């Protein structure tokens, strides 16, 4: 990796440490863990299953929220503090800035996923926990890459946050939406339905169906096949590369 990209990535990580992101993750983790213990105590049977299921599902959402908001706020602050202007005045290609920030955020995503999965080690089988952690890291990688793309494209926190939220909710619901639109009980031949189905199918081509990532069922029922994990890793890498390219494209076209 280019030393300038590595330096930006390192400072992005350092910024995360100094803005108390680890403390926030730790507090969230403890709250979720405590709540999962409460769930375990009030369940009559399958206590460990309830605990693991609740903790995994809630920590997944919390991790996505923290990672996305952190990226949005961090880059917005850099815009507002004019730190970006200083960087652009240097002999630094814009792509290096984007790649450096992305590398830093990806490292943060991996660290959050690792921290989130630690309590699960005592609740589920190790291979399943490993799969869940790797999948959460991949999911967070997509989310942080999309958040970076949005905040650089829109330059505004509200618009960017709205888009990230919409993207994530749509990604989690995409499979269900496709199932519902594919075979309606009535009106399948109407023009409006065909237009909607075409749009849903087109959306499915350019969006990852995030419900396939980080499934609680792997922890409480049966672990995922490793081939499926490889496929998720491939999809994640491809989508992060696409988002990185789109971010660089937008960033190169911006006038500051």
């Amino acid at each position, binding site marked *: 990796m280019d030393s300038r990209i590595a330096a930006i990535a390192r400072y992005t990580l350092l910024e995360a440490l100094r803005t108390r992101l680890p403390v926030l993750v730790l507090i969230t983790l403890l709250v979720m863990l405590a709540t999962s213990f409460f769930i375990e105590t009030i369940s009559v049977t399958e206590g460990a299953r309830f605990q693991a299921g609740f903790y995994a599902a809630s920590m997944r959402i919390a991790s996505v929220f923290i990672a996305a908001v952190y990226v949005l706020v961090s880059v917005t602050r850099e815009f507002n503090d004019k730190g970006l202007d200083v960087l652009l005045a240097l002999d630094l290609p814009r792509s290096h800035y984007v790649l450096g920030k992305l590398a830093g955020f990806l490292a943060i995503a991996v660290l959050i996923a690792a921290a989130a999965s630690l309590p699960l080690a005592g609740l589920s089988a190790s291979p399943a926990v490993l799969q869940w952690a790797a999948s959460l890291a991949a999911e967070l990688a997509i989310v942080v890459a999309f958040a970076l793309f949005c905040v650089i494209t829109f330059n505004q926190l509200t618009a960017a946050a709205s888009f990230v939220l919409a993207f994530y909710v749509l990604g989690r619901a995409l499979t269900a939406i496709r199932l519902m639109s594919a075979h309606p009980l009535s009106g399948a031949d109407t023009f409006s339905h065909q237009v909607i189905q075409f749009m849903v199918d087109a959306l499915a*081509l350019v969006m990852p169906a995030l419900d396939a990532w980080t499934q609680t069922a792997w922890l409480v029922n049966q672990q995922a096949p490793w081939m499926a994990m490889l496929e998720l890793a491939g999809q994640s890498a*491809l989508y992060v590369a696409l988002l990185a390219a789109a971010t660089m494209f937008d960033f190169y076209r911006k006038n500051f």
Partner: protein
Amino acid sequence: MKTGGERVIAAVPRWVLLLLAVAFCAQVTWQALQPPPNARAEALGAPAEPALLRTLALGEPIALAQLLTLNLQAFDNQPGVSVPFLDLDYARVTAWLGTILELDPVGQYPLLMASQIYAQVPDEAKQRRMCAFVREQFDRDPDRRWRWLAHCAIVAKHRLGDTRLALSYADAITRGARLASNWARQMRIFILEDLGELEAATVLLGGLLASGEVTEPKEIHFLTERLKELKAAGKSSSPLENRHPKP
């Protein structure tokens, strides 16, 4: 050329453009090669308690009910499952339908699904279960839900061949649903006639005409003619459906 404060596309390095194009094509190709999602009938889980769902709905129980309805619908209407309704666990389906009705009691969709969709499977036990569900739900709001029970009466008579069950449904409509259409409220008379209980049918039909509930002249004429036929003790040979006046 500058437009809207943006730099020209030529300002973007070629390798970035190439990466964008390749990544986009790879993403679209990858997704296009994925098999379409396919729901499995056994994937239908038990619903949560209505009280919990109401809490989770964050003050929007109707929206949640509608979402759950569409979700339930997606389970039984998927490609790759040749007879989807038969594969479903009907105990769970009725639990879901009941939960949805708890969240949105005014909604008619769950009862439509129960009477018109789930009750159409070629399985008598499942048809009976769905009709029983509709019957149970009818009692909670007869004036809104009578049409689904009327459909179940027809299912009971013609599909299940259980005229007594059809009569009990028709009777419930007559007694419970004051706002039901006349054709539905008169249904029990014709079912009684089919059962050979001409005397009871005659009394009911005479009572109906005497009560003044029927005000449409053509309908009064039709029913009067039927009453005459019944009194003549000649059971009509025409099928039930043809005797019904239009609602």
